[in-house]
């Protein structure tokens, strides 16, 4: 009896160890992303102070109980601005990934299933966009349409379409060649039904991994654009904009630059680790590769 219990406990332990040990990277990334999402949700309803509330006489205060991260050059609470910046960053990044996915996934599926001229054209177009760096595309669009959250989001989204198309296509190709898809074809299912019933569910995990990896790229791009003054215009709180402002006060208050810098770096690290870890769990043969 006790032997049986012991065996059972050992089995449970090994399952837990396999899940956690399967990918510490996914666990770590998941935790970080979870915290970021939590902050974003809280910030929608509550921040310690108004992110735009200016208070004279309270400029550039060091961290204290009243202002956990201090105040900026207008006396605005840094923590509140950082929290409200989380919302904007996530919204813009998710918007970009959504644009990229809504265009890229169908394009990739189409390119995989119609391997003639249509597929070839799609992949050449993807190559064309891919050869054009995202930041350069964003700068071009901003030059034409002016700096705004929408311009930045669309630019980053469009530039990210090819990576979705490529991942979807290469994941769909082996499935389309599989025996069960051949069987479904012989059975008389329409190509669209095959894509929906057989291909999409099998491609979905790869797309999820790609979403997480791409989010780390888009968070970075959103921050870079707002740092350069090409994203959401001030006084709205953005991580990049806060960093840019803080740079004028590096001699008086270097901490002011550290907070938004930390927020950007931790978010990028979190999404990246989550995507890497999920990929490892998905395909153990890829483990250790980059």
């Amino acid at each position: 009896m006790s032997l049986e219990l012991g065996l059972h406990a050992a089995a449970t332990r090994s399952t837990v160890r396999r899940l956690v040990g399967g990918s510490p990277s996914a666990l770590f990334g998941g935790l970080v992303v979870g915290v970021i999402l939590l902050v974003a949700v809280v910030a929608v309803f509550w921040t310690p102070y108004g992110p735009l509330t200016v208070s004279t006489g309270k400029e550039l205060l060091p961290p204290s109980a009243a202002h956990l991260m201090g105040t900026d050059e207008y006396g605005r609470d840094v923590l509140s601005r950082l929290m409200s910046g989380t919302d904007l960053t996530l919204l813009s990044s998710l918007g970009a990934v959504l644009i990229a996915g809504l265009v890229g996934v169908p394009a990739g599926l189409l390119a995989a299933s119609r391997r003639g001229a249509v597929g070839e054209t799609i992949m050449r177009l993807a190559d064309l966009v891919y050869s054009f760096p995202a930041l350069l595309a964003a700068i071009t669009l901003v030059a034409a349409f002016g700096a705004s959250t929408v311009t930045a989001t669309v630019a980053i989204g469009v530039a990210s379409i090819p990576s979705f198309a490529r991942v979807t296509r290469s994941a769909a190709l082996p499935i389309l060649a599989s025996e069960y898809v051949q069987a479904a074809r012989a059975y008389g299912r329409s190509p669209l039904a095959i894509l929906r019933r057989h291909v999409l569910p099998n491609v979905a995990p790869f797309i999820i991994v790609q979403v997480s990896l791409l989010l780390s790229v888009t968070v970075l791009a959103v921050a870079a654009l707002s740092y350069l003054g090409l994203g959401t215009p001030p006084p709205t709180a953005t991580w990049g904009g806060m960093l840019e402002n803080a740079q004028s006060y590096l001699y008086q208050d270097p901490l002011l630059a550290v907070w938004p810098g930390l927020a950007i770096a931790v978010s990028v690290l979190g999404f990246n680790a989550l995507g890497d870890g999920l990929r490892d769990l998905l395909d153990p043969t890829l483990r250790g590769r980059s």
Partner: protein
Amino acid sequence: MAGSPLLPAEDAPDRRDLAFLRFLARRLVAMVLTLFGASVLVFTVLNILPGSPAQVILGTQATPASVRELTIKLGLNQPLPLQYLHWIAGLLSLHLGNSYISGQPIAPELEAALAVTGPLVALGLLFGLAIAVPTGILSALRHRRASGAWLAAATQVGIAIPNFVLGILLIIVVAVDWRLLPASGFIPWSQSVGGALRSLVLPAISLGLVEGAILSRYVRTAILGVMRADYLRTARAKGLPAGRALVRHGVRNASVPVLTVLGLELSGLIIGAVVIEAVFTLPGVGSLLLSSVANRDLITVQDIVMLVATVVVVANLVVDLLYRIVDPRLEVGG
């Protein structure tokens, strides 16, 4: 290279050269098409909006007559396709045109900017490689030990720190706290070579570290792959020490995947330079691009965007060619 195993051995190099030339020709055509597509896209995006550059140049006080006159002088009354051809013909003959804002030719200004950005990117690449190769090899050789795992984790963190954040952190520590190097600005090469180099040190480190961290992971993976290969075991069995075996048989094989990533890294460096120049207020191509965007000097924007796109595409082609030369087994045409 279908069927080449059937040919006599002495014929093979000839066929290989021919196949390589065919591959080269195809890639060149693809490159020209890509750049053509990019130029049409850039031109369309920047010229699709109503609003006359002449109005921007002359300001809101200008009379309609003077705006019309300048529009005609700049050739902006012509149909868009004609304007496009005019622009492209100018670029191909290296006439970049005059700035809408200052009226000065763009080429000399761009040349001066390239004298900053070129060395910056080169130093960044050098620094990145100086980090990537040793850390990558070390973390591969020690992959079963804690030190290797720590090294791999450190590169993971290095990847996550954006170059502009790193730049600002470096300014805080090295320039503000230690007062070792300048925090911003650039001393022209003509004035002092040492001064110019000093002003490029921090920017190059910020630029190179992230790319180096990314590259380091690929070096690690490549070396790990090579270490498991049969030919390396054979070399060890022959009696070669591990390090010598890796140098003699491993490096060439490991360099193939690393080269591909290097091409991508190069475009990362060039784009990263745009941001880094803003961080350190360096008068490079990126700063020129951003100030042209702010001034709505669209012709300068058009020229610089095409220049950067061309450099990125050519860099990728060169890496692709190197790739073939390092590993001739790769199937031509893929």
